């Protein structure tokens, strides 16, 4: 759809009342949700599925997702793989370097709970949410690219419900 028309659609939908504020909200959310640049963050085997999702067959670019190699240019961190005790402080640093608003997707059972390394592991952190807040969890070992895209669509839904005044 034509870009201007798309914006116009949102503006027209607004109910009466606080018109300017709500319009800004949906305009910003529309922009945020459709330009989620993500940080290259493959930690283990899930990264292969993330790469597959980014490559031409599943083509994340069509959703406005492009990978960037610097946290300062990104809005989304897809944690794809096991978080180890050595990696955890670095994840935290990278997350702090990302500009607000920032979002995190925990991809795969390793990033959610430690997965296959839940028991008897001295090195694996039991879920990336011990280190940084997570918006969307995608289960699977590894999740297929379709599942990753489903998670991204869920995140876009979540972003579209946000408001500038409260998150």
């Amino acid at each position, binding site marked *: 759809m034509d870009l201007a028309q798309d914006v116009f659609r949102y503006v027209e939908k607004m109910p009466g009342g606080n018109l300017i504020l709500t319009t800004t909200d949906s305009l910003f959310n529309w922009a945020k949700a459709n330009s989620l640049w993500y940080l290259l963050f493959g930690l283990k085997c899930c990264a292969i599925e993330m790469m597959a999702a980014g490559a031409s067959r599943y083509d994340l670019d069509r959703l406005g997702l492009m990978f960037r190699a610097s946290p300062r240019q990104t809005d989304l961190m897809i944690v794809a793989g096991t978080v180890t*005790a*050595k990696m955890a402080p670095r994840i935290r640093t990278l997350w702090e370097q990302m500009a607000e608003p920032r979002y995190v997707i925990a991809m795969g059972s390793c990033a959610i709970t430690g997965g296959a390394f*839940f*028991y*008897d*592991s*001295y*090195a694996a952190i*039991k879920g990336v949410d011990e280190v940084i807040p997570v918006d969307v969890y995608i289960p699977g070992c590894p999740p297929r690219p379709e599942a990753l895209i489903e998670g991204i669509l869920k995140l876009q839904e979540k972003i579209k419900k946000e408001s500038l005044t409260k998150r």
Partner: protein
Amino acid sequence: MTEEKKISREELLATGENIKAQYNFLVFITAVDYPERNVIGMVYHLRSLGNRDTLIIKIDLPREKPEIASVAGIWPAAEWHEREVFDLFGVNFLGHPDLRRILLPPDWEGSPLRKDYTKPGVIKRPETIK
């Protein structure tokens, strides 16, 4: 052909000097913890690139004070492998050029691949889960 040799730790350097012309490729160095024998077993896998023979050298070290001469001067590839064994088993390599932790964070305590290693937060696998 694969050959296996068990030697004592004092013989390691002399053996290494003797065989390094033939076994010119160090595949890996690793260790095994045997708490029931109170032994840390060192394993050296060597390969001859000339005639494709493999030689496995095994050395038992006492568990309380595992110390052995470094072979980094004979096979330079040994340097990182010995750092790994130092990191995960706590074996001390005498004469190693740069003996630091290689995989774990520098402030890590203990040697996690020893069988009796415990760390708060490590969840034991229940018997019922295979």
